[in-house]
């Protein structure tokens, strides 16, 4: 993993070092130029003073042991004088300044004419380079010292700058999974605040999800208590039956109770699965609503017959195809048909219709039951909501499941009044364009 501190250290040190290097080169260049100017001036002054002395003026004493070399040439090109024997200046004589190269390195030479003689004063350039280098080093020495201190400084200061992040990390790390209250925003640097805000946003969403899960579990436990209480009493009554007939009827009731508890648990699991899947894509399988309706009607034929309810399809539009999770859609329609058959009195009818509207494909289940008054139509989607005075022993979860599945498919569930006065439930799926004649698959497995 990349350390922000390490990266900052390396880049800052690199930048400062590069800047120092450029500064050093510049300092050397400047020093060198100044030294050149000064020495050139000296060379010239010396040469001119030598000439003046030769003409009778008093001139400077030329110190031996200096790095300057003086040479005087005769008119015939013979060397008349050389200040330090062994050191030889090239015999070219260009009047004025010249830089010449010799086997012992480059020289700076000033030549002045004195009658038919030539006076030359020279100095090896290496001397100037060394001086310029020394001057540059002297100028930059404090900077080099600073360069040694810099890693430590950068490390500490960057560390201090990142401390709010550290504190934030600790605040998050030491939390228990259930402590989802927001992190404090005050005292947080501007750069870190977006992070804190998004963390707080995430925690808010997590907290809401957790709360809904908690409520679900509490509701579920609460709703299971009553059927369990009934089961327990039914079992004890069967145990205490005084004769075979009483026992048989008690056991039959126990079995009905078990069926009911089993149904409730199954509905709970379905709802938990659907609610957990909220926000996920429901799958891309093409599902023909017509076939779905036919299969669901077949599945509920026996229940309808037993209740004396006429269950069938009215209009079926084969073009109605939606994309989604076939098992979930089956559960959706099964719950609607099951509810309709349950709440429709004997002799009534339940109609299933499938159609295509201007912007939607729809499933519609209408019954001739008592219907649901408009003011209660929102509440019936709440889990475990049972309408007062309801005679049927439902789980109270059917419509909650329908809603969860519909929402996952981007569909809308609308309750209305049927032509027969009963309830109409219409599930509208936004129109999708079916891709060609892909195989339309409906699982034939029992799912509700």
């Amino acid at each position: 993993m990349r350390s922000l501190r390490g990266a900052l250290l390396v880049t800052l040190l690199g930048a400062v070092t590069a800047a120092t290097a450029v500064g050093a080169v510049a300092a050397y260049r400047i020093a060198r130029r100044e030294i050149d100017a000064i020495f050139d001036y000296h060379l010239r002054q010396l040469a001119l003073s030598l000439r003046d002395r030769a003409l009778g003026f008093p001139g400077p004493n030329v110190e031996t042991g200096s790095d300057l070399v003086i040479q005087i040439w005769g008119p015939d090109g013979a060397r008349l004088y050389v200040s330090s024997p062994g050191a030889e200046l090239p015999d070219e004589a260009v009047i004025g300044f010249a830089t010449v190269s010799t086997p012992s390195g480059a020289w700076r030479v000033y030549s002045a004419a004195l009658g038919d003689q030539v006076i030359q004063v020279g100095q090896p350039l290496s001397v100037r380079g060394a001086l310029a280098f020394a001057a540059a080093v002297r100028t930059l020495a404090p900077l080099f010292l600073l360069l040694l201190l810099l890693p430590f400084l950068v490390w500490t200061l960057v560390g201090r700058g990142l401390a709010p992040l550290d504190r934030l990390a600790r605040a998050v790390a030491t939390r228990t999974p259930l402590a989802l209250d927001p992190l404090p925003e005050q005292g947080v640097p501007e750069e870190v605040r977006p992070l804190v805000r998004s963390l707080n946003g995430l925690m808010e969403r997590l907290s809401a999800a957790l709360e809904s899960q908690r409520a679900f579990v509490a509701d579920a436990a609460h709703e299971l208590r009553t059927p369990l209480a009934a089961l327990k009493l039914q079992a004890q009554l069967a145990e205490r039956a005084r004769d075979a007939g009483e026992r048989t009827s008690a056991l039959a009731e126990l079995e009905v109770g078990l069926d009911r508890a089993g149904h409730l648990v199954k509905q709970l699991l379905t709802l938990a699965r659907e609610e957990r899947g909220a926000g996920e894509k429901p799958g891309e399988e093409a599902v023909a609503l017509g076939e779905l309706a036919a299969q669901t009607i077949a599945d509920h034929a026996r229940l309808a017959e037993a209740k004396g309810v006429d269950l069938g399809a009215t209009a079926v539009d084969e073009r109605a195809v939606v994309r989604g999770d076939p098992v979930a859609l089956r559960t959706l329609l099964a719950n609607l048909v099951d509810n309709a058959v349950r709440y429709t009195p004997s002799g009534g009818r339940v109609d299933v219709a499938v159609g295509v509207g201007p912007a939607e494909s729809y499933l519609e289940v209408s019954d001739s039951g008592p219907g649901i008054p408009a003011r209660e139509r929102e509440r019936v989607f709440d889990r475990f909501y049972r309408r007062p005075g309801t005679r049927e022993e439902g789980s109270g979860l059917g419509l909650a499941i329908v809603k969860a599945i519909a929402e996952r498919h981007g569909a809308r569930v609308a309750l209305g009044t049927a032509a027969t006065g009963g309830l109409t439930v219409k599930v509208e799926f936004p129109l999708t364009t079916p891709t060609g004649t892909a195989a339309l698959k409906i699982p034939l497995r029992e799912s509700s």
Partner: protein
Amino acid sequence: MRLLLVEDDRMLGASVQRGLRLEGHAVDWVEDGEAAADALRAEPYDLLLLDLGLPRRGGLEVLRELRRGGERTPVLVLTARDAVADRVAGLDAGADDYLVKPFDLDELNARVRALLRRSSGRAEPVLEVAGLRLDPAAHEVTLDGVPVTLSSREFALLEALLERPGRPMSRTRLEERLYGWGEQVESNAVEVHVHSLRKKLGSRFIQTLRGVGYVVPRAP
């Protein structure tokens, strides 16, 4: 004893009713708060079994209204809500006891007996008068240590009379204790049961007070 059961779950209601009837109680059963309030106004009950999550009118509301009217009928709350706050709310609203679902039939019966015993002003669970002992929990009657076999109606009738020896009870009051709604009551049912009890226990324990009813004398 005549009990009113208020429970909106039909399966559980039927089971509780049947279980309490096996104990010899007369049990009327209603399924919502309004019906419970009506029944409480109409009939004298020895005990109220009340679910809290009721349609139309909540159990707590029924309970508060009952207590506001000065009614001291013992109330046993049957509920799925088991949080401490719920129990406190139930007891503070005037409940005498609290039973969380799912419960055991034996525990239900025991709590019903305890409440009935307390409301009749007794602390000891066994009723006893001059060698005649009636144990409501064990459903046993002994006369001078010898067990006597009674039908559940006979048992309930004897229990009602033994609860407060010396205090007469009218025939109507006894009928109400023995039979719930919809149960067939023969016009002379109480006489028949008293007759049968006298045959089994001897005539000294139950006296007929003409025009008043029946009494178990304090010292027969």
